[in-house]
């Protein structure tokens, strides 16, 4: 699906720090986010910015989230990357290929019953096949990065189990992703830095850049959020004059400076103004 547009309030200092990467430089970025940080709003704004603004190379983003069962394990993460980037699914030749009963001919009745086929792979075969797929993913991603940029946005990696960290590190990070950082791959890891996982085999890697996600609008970020709120209120036609729009923005920020609360207040206002909606 195309990215759902959502308003961006502030995030200016964070995006300023990320600008070299937005311009196409690969790297690993750690985003430290405490339990009350506006992780979803930041991730959404980041992906919107990358995918909708003009950049030297167009961006594709993939979100790998600890809450998303599709991206819990290495095969699922690989499938999601391939699907999101539209890479050709090259899964290799199947490990088993057989046929039963082809070209049979009869002029009478044929009864076939109780046919049971059981195919099982041993761990070595499964592991070898997964490794082949990791190599194929690396090759196709490397080719993709010649014409586009890719951001893998990892959310909540502090919740990974030791096995998840080890499998990700052993297979995907060391087998495909690490080498692609120099080809322009951007890995943005958003996690609670006070609940970090036990490192395993190079994961998590040393970051090229560290950001801290704030929980509140303060100082310049409050000024920027105020201006963004007023601009949105004007662009949506909620107010006819800039002074009215500024009163609206000020009222929201006076009610709460908590970033998550401010987004909720904006959403509440938007939901009630857009149309019948709440007509139950």
């Amino acid at each position, binding site marked *: 699906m195309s990215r759902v547009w959502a308003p961006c309030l502030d995030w200016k200092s964070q995006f300023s720090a990320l600008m070299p990467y937005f311009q196409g430089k690969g790297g690993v970025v750690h985003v430290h986010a405490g339990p009350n940080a506006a992780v979803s709003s930041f991730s959404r704004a980041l*992906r919107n910015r990358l995918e909708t603004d003009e950049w030297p190379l167009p961006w594709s983003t993939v979100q790998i989230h600890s809450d998303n069962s599709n991206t819990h394990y290495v095969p699922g993460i690989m499938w999601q990357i391939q699907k999101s980037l539209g890479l050709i699914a090259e899964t290799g030749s199947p490990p088993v290929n057989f046929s039963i009963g082809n070209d049979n001919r009869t002029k009478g009745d044929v009864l076939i019953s109780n046919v049971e086929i059981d195919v099982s792979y041993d761990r070595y075969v499964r592991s070898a096949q997964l490794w082949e797929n990791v190599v194929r993913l690396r090759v196709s991603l490397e080719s993709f990065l010649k014409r586009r940029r890719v951001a893998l946005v990892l959310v909540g990696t502090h919740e990974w189990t030791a096995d998840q960290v080890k499998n990700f590190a052993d297979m995907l990070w060391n087998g495909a992703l690490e080498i692609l950082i120099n080809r322009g791959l951007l890995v943005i890891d958003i996690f609670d830095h006070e609940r970090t996982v036990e490192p395993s085999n190079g994961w998590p890697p040393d970051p090229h850049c560290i950001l801290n996600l704030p929980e509140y609008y303060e100082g310049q970020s409050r000024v920027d959020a105020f201006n963004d709120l007023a601009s949105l209120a004007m662009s949506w036609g909620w107010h006819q004059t800039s002074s009215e729009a500024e009163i609206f923005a000020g009222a929201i920020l006076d009610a709460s400076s908590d970033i998550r*609360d401010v987004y*909720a207040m*904006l959403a509440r206002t938007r*939901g009630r103004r*857009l149309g019948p909606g709440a007509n139950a």
Partner: protein
Amino acid sequence: MPEHHGLRNDVAIFIQGSDAIESGLIVLAAAESLTDEIAAYIMELVGFEDPSSVVEALHFCDFVFERNSEWNLAPDVREYLIGRLRERPELYRAAHDRLLAVCRSR
């Protein structure tokens, strides 16, 4: 601010003053992940004729996480809302009936 024990403040803000939006959010908790179309389909159960404005506004909220082709409510929020949904057995059943119908139609 309404009293919603165990609920994040931003969720309380979003539903504040509208029983319809609160019910809409409660019924969405039936699904582990959603698309806008599925969200609108199950929100019809609580009387929304056109829930698109509320669904659009949900995408502004920090308790909604975008995936890659779907979205989900933050787990702690969904857990709270599922508790509320279970208080309404008929709605609980109806929501899951609709989700099952969606699965079967795919």
